[in-house]
């Protein structure tokens, strides 16, 4: 998953803890192997290299694609799993290398879910376009892991996949799981959240940006323009029933830019924004 992952569980013995960790790790790796865009042996690779031909997908992939369609519509076309190709021109490495407008325009015709034909179970996409399920996969994996732990009758547990985390229930001998949200400084705490049930995710990374002529370009890209969303919060932390919901809401809030807080307030979401 490209980030530290952990399972914290109240298993009474080392063996039980190892079994549960194995259960979670296997599922997380399965999802990563299946949906990573960095591999050449999975369904995402087949879709991205189909060169305009239709690809028939399995049930699980179809479920994720349906979900992506919902997000696309809910976000007014801003949450788009075909936007990954914009990374070819945008590299948020703290430098001042903002791409030329022509370069961005040149790549925009390879972006847009409206150019894709999705007739379950067949996906047909113009050549040169790519899908990337990275914006959903981690949250989905965390929720799947929690469901597996519940099904296995595991004691209270917390699954943390690189900051996207979910719990199977409240800890048995304390008030809540205490989750610290990292501040701007590595190791500092922006705030502490007590989580008893549900999930918590944070979108935004204060260390990923470009800076040119005093203008800060955050790393959240608007696929309808090809440019970073202006005035997005530095980070949005959301609490929701599932990690998937929390992650999607925090991303959608980021995509609203200046309107992030208003969106979260109108939706009645428990959230913490940082500007």
């Amino acid at each position, binding site marked *: 998953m490209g980030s530290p992952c952990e399972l914290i569980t109240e298993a009474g013995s080392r063996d039980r803890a190892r079994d549960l960790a194995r259960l979670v790790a296997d599922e997380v790796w399965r999802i990563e192997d299946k949906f990573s865009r960095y591999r050449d042996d999975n369904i995402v690779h087949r879709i991205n290299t189909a060169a305009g031909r239709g690809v028939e997908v399995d049930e699980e992939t179809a479920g994720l694609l349906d979900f992506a369609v919902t997000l696309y519509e809910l976000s007014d076309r801003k949450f788009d799993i075909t936007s990954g190709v914009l990374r070819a021109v945008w590299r948020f490495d703290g430098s001042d290398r903002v791409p030329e407008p022509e370069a961005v325009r040149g790549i925009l015709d390879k972006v847009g879910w409206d150019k894709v034909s999705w007739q379950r179970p067949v996906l047909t996409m113009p050549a040169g376009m790519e899908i990337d399920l990275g914006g959903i996969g981690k949250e989905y994996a965390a929720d799947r892991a929690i469901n597996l732990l519940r099904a296995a009758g595991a004691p209270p547990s917390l699954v943390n996949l690189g900051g996207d985390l979910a719990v199977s229930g409240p800890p048995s001998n304390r008030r809540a799981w205490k989750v610290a949200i990292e501040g701007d400084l590595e*190791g*500092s705490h922006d705030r502490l959240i007590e989580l008893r049930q549900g999930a918590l995710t944070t979108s935004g990374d204060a260390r990923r940006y470009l800076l040119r002529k005093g203008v800060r370009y955050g790393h959240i890209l608007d696929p309808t323009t090809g440019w970073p969303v202006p005035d997005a919060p530095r980070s949005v932390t959301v*609490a929701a029933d599932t990690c998937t*919901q929390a992650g999607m809401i925090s991303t959608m809030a980021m995509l609203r830019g200046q309107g992030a807080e208003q969106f979260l307030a109108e939706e009645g*979401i428990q959230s913490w924004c940082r500007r």
Partner: protein
Amino acid sequence: MTISKERSVTATLAAATCTLLGTVPAPVDAQEEPKWDFNTSVLYYGEDGDRVQDASLKALIRRMFVDDRYLTLGITVDTLTGATPSGAIRQDGAQTFTRPSGNGSYVVPAGEHPLDDTFHDTRVALSANWTQPTGRAGLFDVGTSFSKEYDYTHLGVNARYAHDFNKRNTTLSAGISFSQDSVDPVGGSPRPLSEMLDVGDISNRSGSEDKDIIDVVVGITQVINPKLIVQANYSLSQSDGYLNNPYKVLSVVDPITGDTLARTPGIEGGPSGIFLFENRPDTRTQHSIYTQAKYYMGGKVLDVSYRYMTDDWEIDSHTVDLRYRWPLGSEKYLEPHLRFYTQSEAEFYRLSLPDPNDPNGAPLPAYASSDYRLGNFDAITAGLKYGWTTKNGNEMSVRLEWYRQTGTIPADQIIGNQANRDNYPDLNAVIAQFSYRFDL
């Protein structure tokens, strides 16, 4: 899937997530950790034999802000009553003293240790500190303190910086504080080494006095291994100004018998003997080294510390403090506490003084005090604390401690009949405290 505009984003997303995961999740239960932390306590300190009683209410209130920044506010209210040794020695007959105010007198029965029972006061102390990280490994703290009692005002500022090194296993810190205190004694501050006068005579009194104190401390904290953490501090304290206790006197005695020289009180009444107000140097430099180790042993924590203090008044002291935190299940603990303290007397500590008007007598020293706290004494504190966590996660504790102090007067200071009297009575005190810590 078509999205009806009436449905909120959240509801649509929740339905889509249920479809994706194939399960209906339990509703989220999350809250931001409380931003206000209240640490409150009520404490009773009582010395035996009608000596000092102190009832104290204390609250430490912390307000957390984002990025590990916080404001800490402190408030303490103390009420002191009881009697405290005046510094005069016992006599076989009754003794009369003028009150510190100069407005009256009191009598100490024959053979009893002279205590001044006019001692009562209310003290209010306030403090505010702001703490915030600086950079990745630094922590900066700046604060101010103020306290006021009837005859004493304190105003202080302090700053401290701590820096983590070595993957946060080592912390170096440095701090400085400055305080400006003023004493405005009841009845005015007496001229040092002047006589206690008759009731109504305040010719040896003047107004308020000041002192400045600068404290500097540097320290290191080191994590040795996951079970052991050690700490060492060096601190320097420099006091300048009026360091006397304006209410303390010394008995002037006969060089052979050691009895207090008699004096004839005036019509308004006054002291029955000759007593001189004490005088201390107007500077004091203290150095102290503090070391501490905390050792974690399967849930139990042993906390051992040692402090060595030395100053240019020639007081050397050693303190050993032991605490053992013993968990009883996950929500309760017992903590026995033992503290041993010993100090040598100040170079100007005197049980009594020679007659300054005797041409053949010993000369009066430049500085003299018989304050028992500047004497040679040992003290032991033994106590037990019981703490528990309430159902809603708040912490409560009760602490009960006994304190015993035993002093000795240097043999070469004891003259004549003084040898038959207890010149440094033992002090026994009890400390009871109830603490309650809660969040809002």
